[in-house]
């Protein structure tokens, strides 16, 4: 049984379009830009929380490069390894597995401009998959130097 030409053409465009979209989705998969705005926290908001005696202090986890962490990081934050790698994700899961699922956790990286960061989205996805419901990702538009250090926010060095 042969299908009408118009139907075949429509089918062709649908299949072709789906393939293109699927390939593009794979390319977008790790992008920080896909993290919903409701899960982001701006640097100034985080600084206010850290300075407030009343606010719950979050567990802050740096999910980027160790070399960058050694140069500057948020005081009290922990280095866990780049979440773009499987070993980094495993370390992250291990670090939080015993914590209550409503624990306030802030993830950050700042290695690269936001849309290029390969680390924050996999980290955020991993915590949500584990059932954590109070996770925020620090929105660093350009890099940790420009959007945190140069703004005069608190910084620690070394391990």
């Amino acid at each position, binding site marked *: 049984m042969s299908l009408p030409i118009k139907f075949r*053409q*429509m089918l*062709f*465009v649908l299949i*072709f*379009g789906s393939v*293109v*979209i699927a390939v*593009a989705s794979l*390319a*977008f998969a790790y*992008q920080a*830009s*896909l993290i919903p705005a409701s899960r982001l926290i701006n640097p100034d908001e985080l600084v206010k929380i850290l300075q407030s005696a009343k606010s719950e202090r979050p567990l802050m986890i740096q999910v980027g*490069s*160790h*070399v*960058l962490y*050694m*140069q*500057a990081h948020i005081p009290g934050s922990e280095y866990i*390894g*780049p979440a*773009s*790698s499987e070993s980094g994700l495993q370390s992250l899961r291990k670090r939080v597995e015993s914590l209550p699922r409503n624990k306030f956790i802030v993830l950050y990286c*700042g*290695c*690269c*401009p*936001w*849309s*290029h960061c*390969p*680390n924050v989205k996999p980290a955020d996805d991993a915590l949500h998959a584990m059932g954590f419901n109070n996770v925020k990702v620090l929105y660093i*538009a*350009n*890099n*940790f*130097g*420009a959007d945190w*250090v140069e703004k005069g926010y608190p910084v620690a*060095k*070394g391990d």
Partner: protein
Amino acid sequence: MKKWILRGLALIAVVAGLYFVTRHHGERTTMRSTGTREPSPAPDFSLSDLAGQNLQLLSYRGKVVLLDFWATWCDPCREEIPHLIELQNKYGEQGLQIIGVSMDDGPEPVRDFYQRFKMNYPVVMGNAKTGELYGGVLGLPIAFVIGRDGRIYSKHIGATNISVFEKEIVALLG
């Protein structure tokens, strides 16, 4: 049929446009030239290259050096590499030396990347101390253009158009 092909192409264009907008949102290219002030000397360092040999910046005095802080996991850094290879090919004989300073946590992925991309300039493994020497490398890529006199003529934070590098290099090569 032609109409449907056109529709298919339009769909690709929309997806490609979306991809471009998403990828490049928030990207920043900044050039900080030292302007009219006396350019400051490039801090010297001695670091291991991927073969374990020491590379000292001072030994490149007399050449125009493009010092590129990068990492294999950094997308905009990776996108710049083929262009840097081209620049090294084009201006190497006239006195350009590109030096990559990898800020990866270990050399294994860098060695693999170096071979895959057929990089034609030395890459050393950087560390926090090197970053601090250069005012803090707290985001990648960051590149410094150093003149034959060993002074820093410009600093570029973020992805930089290769024509910007080329213009500066040609001016310094003289």
